């Protein structure tokens, strides 16, 4: 799959919360095929203190409308500069990067997509693709408070949604791994993206219940292309680049349960 570097144009910047923007981007040419779990290296033009691009996962690829969606969490000057782009502005992007989630699965599979914080972003795209393939996805989404749950309606249009919040302001109180759905139902496949402690807990649950699990990692990156070897994760095959060999890994390959 060829990678491109291109100035994409902002169609809309929707402020989802005080710290999250949804950027809908388009191109004058046809966007290339993309797989859920892949990401974009975005140039943070105008950032005062940062220098490197910011890796941001693909929230949705809408081929019909030739749109690429990025859900940006504002955590520093780089992401702040990216999230400040308005309709008509250009955003320099390298994409699509990395390997995506496994979507070629039996349609009868019971799949659970577990996301935390801005880690829910690639799961919307994944859920849509699974749904198109005849798989009925369930989502388990964790957030600090009810206000921090991102794109809830979009997820609800795609599958069953279960929520946990740390303060109990929506869904069940606690972390995603505390949700009763994990005890009440059984799954054949789990996909997860979010903070590392959350993903490790989800991977551990999957491991103990002999469920296949894929996690999307977000180690600090420089190049995004597998050249600098900065974003490595220890695996059964040695140090692998999250940007090129991931960001999605089968959790059995990671040294998390050791």
């Amino acid at each position, binding site marked *: 799959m*060829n*990678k*491109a*570097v291109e100035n994409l144009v902002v169609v809309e910047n929707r402020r989802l919360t005080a710290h999250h923007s949804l950027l809908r981007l388009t191109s004058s040419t046809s966007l290339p095929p993309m797989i859920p779990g892949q990401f974009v290296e975005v*140039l943070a033009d105008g950032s005062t*203190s*940062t*220098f*490197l*691009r910011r890796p941001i996962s693909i929230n949705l690829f809408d081929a019909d409308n030739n749109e690429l969606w990025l859900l940006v969490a504002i955590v520093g000057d780089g992401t702040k500069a990216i999230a400040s782009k308005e309709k008509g502005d250009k955003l320099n992007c*390298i994409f699509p990067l990395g390997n995506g989630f496994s979507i070629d699965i039996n349609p009868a599979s019971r799949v659970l997509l577990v996301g935390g914080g801005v880690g829910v972003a690639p799961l919307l795209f994944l859920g849509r693709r699974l749904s198109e393939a005849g798989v009925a996805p369930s989502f388990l989404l964790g957030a600090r408070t009810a206000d921090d749950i991102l794109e809830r309606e979009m997820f609800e249009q795609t599958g069953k949604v279960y929520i946990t919040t740390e303060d109990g302001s929506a869904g069940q109180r606690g972390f995603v791994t505390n949700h009763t759905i994990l005890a009440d139902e059984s799954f054949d496949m789990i996909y997860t993206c979010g903070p590392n402690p959350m993903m490790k807990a989800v991977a551990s649950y999957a491991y103990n219940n002999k469920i296949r699990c894929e996690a999307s990692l977000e*180690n*600090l*990156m*420089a*190049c*995004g*292309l*597998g*050249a*600098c*070897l*900065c*974003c*490595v*994760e*220890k695996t059964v095959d*040695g*140090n692998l680049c999250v940007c*090129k060999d991931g960001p999605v890994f089968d959790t059995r390959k990671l040294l998390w349960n050791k």
Partner: protein
Amino acid sequence: MANLNVNIAGLSLPNPVMTASGTFGYGIEFSDFVDLSQIGAIIVKGTTLLPREGNDYPRMAETAQGMLNCVGLQNKGVDYFCERIYPELSKYNSRFIVNVSGSSPDDYAECASRIDALDGIPAIELNISCPNVRQGGMAFGVTTEGAASVVREVRKRYHKTLVVKLSPNVTDIADIARAVEGAGADAVSLINTLMGMSIDIEHRRSRLSIGTGGLSGPAVKPVAVRMVWQVARAVKIPVIGLGGIMNAADAIEFFMAGASAIEIGTANFIDPQVTIKVRDGIDKWLDEHGCLSLQEIIGAVR
């Protein structure tokens, strides 16, 4: 169109723009973005006699106008390079130079001799300046005796163009340059990264797994230009300049300081097409200033 050809001790290049080791993979990683044959030369990632896993994560910290890294020479070893990577590189009509590192003069020499046997690799760059591995690398590059000893051993067993990459983490880089020239180096490249550190104040710990790392990017450019200027006045062999080059104007500073060619490193992470843009920008600048050849500006600043 000015004449951009350069000749570095027998190594003939169509233009002076090379990629710095460790920032461009084997080149193949960037083949979707640039025509590799258009780049002067591609210096592939550091290769050692035996495979190395490198240092633990985190290996990178972003800093003001730059970044620190402590990758630690992760690579699959010279045999893997010769058997698996080299045949792939042979498919591209480009010029590949291998960056060679080691932990003893014998190590370096053995690794270099294996590369010597590859017809399609016209030169090596000897890394005696990596700040991120305890043994090898910088340990040799910070004394005149250490630097000369490695170059002497390699020179005995390597017969093509031998470039030696110098560390800026020294008292007098011109002394080191003279020492490697005396030991048989055909050219020197500088600077490798400047040793630095960045602290996460909330967690009261370094942002890098091994504590320190090498600083690269625009932040180091003035230091690099100064060192290239000093070295170019101290040795007769060609000097290859690198350190924070982001655009053609940066590159021209290095030429004027005395560099015969340049390497682009960290900028590849920001713009995967920067090498070609810099080449075209140098050409344009020379045209606009009435220069028929790049040679006219090399060492222009005395």
